[in-house]
């Protein structure tokens, strides 16, 4: 699809125009950097990847999914206003593609339908970023990237086309550039390395705190919790959970099938690189590096896998 061109100075106007029409969610810097609804372009923070991913706008940390009232169970339907998530990096966009293939409930579908994904090129990846290793694809409604003194807007869908009506079309499309990140995951084909001893060093450092999975833009695992009131009604809440937690694989009676930190740690990495690839034909990791960035004990599994490759 054709690309549009705007000058660098016109980007704020473009975004402010979106804000007048839609609910716009974009990166902001508060206690940490995260996505939040903004009222003006000035609030937006675009220097670097956000610490917190945008997944909460599709799968909230905790959400009522069912209500039991007067002896009936009813799924809670949410009305979502049309909204734009602006400022998603290519890693974040690919993460949403992954969520699209594992989330099937109607509120997720409703949220996706009502959301325009507007990506932006990552001009300043940090030392944890390794997205170029993860075979990312173009997946967006719009994607903005620099082209000399201008920005180009690539259109990824008919939905996206609606947002750029009236903007100058370029004569010729150019390819979306790749971010300049230095970290590389050399060794992704680890299927046969499940029993490699190198995982044990990392697992020893792991606190099972689940920060990696909480900050991961693709981790969607959840469980249910019922809460009741004093009138005999109750509701079922879906909460994000984590395979890093011992009770995640627990069955009635107390047996936990991934009881050891090692097996949980490996499950996380293998799910990202091996299991998901087998199930859906692509990696579940997008190389955003958030798990490495937030790990309190600085576990660098990318490095561990790279070393594994050298040893064979």
């Amino acid at each position: 699809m054709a690309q549009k061109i705007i000058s660098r100075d016109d980007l704020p106007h473009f975004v402010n125009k979106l804000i007048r029409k839609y609910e716009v969610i974009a990166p902001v810097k508060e206690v940490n950097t995260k996505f939040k609804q903004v009222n003006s372009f000035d609030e937006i923070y675009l220097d670097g990847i956000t610490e917190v991913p945008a997944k909460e706008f599709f799968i909230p940390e905790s959400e009522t999914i069912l209500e039991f009232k007067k002896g009936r169970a009813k799924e809670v339907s949410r009305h979502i206003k049309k909204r734009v998530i602006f400022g998603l990096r290519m890693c974040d966009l690919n993460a949403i593609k992954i969520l699209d293939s594992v989330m099937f409930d109607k509120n997720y579908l409703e949220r996706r339908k009502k959301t325009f994904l507007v990506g932006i090129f990552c001009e300043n990846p940090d030392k944890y970023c390794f997205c170029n290793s993860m075979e990312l694809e173009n997946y967006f409604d719009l994607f903005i990237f620099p082209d000399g003194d201008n920005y180009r807007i690539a259109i990824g869908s008919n939905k996206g086309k609606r947002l750029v009506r009236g903007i100058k079309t370029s004569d010729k499309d150019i390819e979306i550039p790749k971010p300049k990140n230095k970290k590389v995951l050399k060794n992704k084909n680890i299927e046969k390395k499940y029993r490699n001893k190198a995982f044990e060093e990392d697992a020893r450092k792991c606190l099972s705190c689940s920060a990696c999975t909480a900050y991961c833009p693709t981790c969607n695992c959840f469980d249910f919790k019922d809460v009741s009131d004093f009138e005999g009604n109750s509701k079922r809440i879906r909460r994000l959970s984590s395979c890093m937690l011992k009770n995640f694989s627990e069955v009635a009676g107390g047996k936990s099938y991934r009881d050891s930190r090692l097996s949980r740690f490996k499950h996380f990495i293998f799910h990202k690189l091996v299991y998901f690839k087998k199930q859906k034909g692509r990696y579940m990791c997008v190389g955003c590096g958030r798990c490495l960035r937030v790990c309190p004990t600085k576990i660098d599994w990318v490095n561990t896998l790279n070393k594994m490759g050298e040893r064979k």
Partner: protein
Amino acid sequence: MSYEPKRYKIIGVKSFTPDVRLFRVKCKLDPKPGQFLEVSVSGFGECPLASCSHMPEFVDLLTRRAGNVTNAMFNLKEGDSIFIRGPYGKGFPVEKLKGKNLILVAGGTGIAPVTSFINFVEQNRKSFGKVFIYFGFRDEKNILLKDRIERWSKKFNVHICLNECEKHSYEKGFVNDVMDKHKPEVENTVALLCGPEAMMDAVTKELKKLGVTHKNVYWSMERRMECGFGSCGRCQIQDVYVCKDGPVFRYDFIKSRLDNERSSERWSE
């Protein structure tokens, strides 16, 4: 895909032991043998259970009081309602089993999916060869579905194996030991197993010894199936979801996956 369960009426409750009850629920969900249902008690939660009957008009939930939801179920009486969604999973590969001799092995409440299949065999007796049933329980008091077992004893080759046993009408020992003593037919035979994994391990080993290869052994597995359709991740065994790829797996398919997971379980920190 929906998380919304429907309300159904409990039309009978039968107590077997202080911990195990059978809840008969009127519904036309008609799960295939080996499939499971997500059963809810409002305010307490949801848990995966298999029906132990194969009937179009009702499901039988053979329930051991073991967790939050099953404990809450024990407060329910005939006439009360219960919420169910499903059925989920693939169940036993019924079509592939036709024309075969069957070895059906189960322990404790693990008999539920297997008994549902036995029901199916009764309804389609001519489609199957000889049937050998080995059920393991702790002792005589813990024998479940006694009436059905008596009925089946007249039709099939039934062995009840008890860990502690005084009477001669039952057999003492683990299922695999009893099987070693009273050997089943192994030619053109498929074995279906459900129970604690340690039991299924021992039985699978014994079956191999007797001549039933791993590709003719099916395990019905227990995991925490939360959503039922491969979204929540709780029941994953490596790259498979027990809820949607199982809960019944051919042993040669699941073995390497289990071996891997167990290898890291043995890790000492």
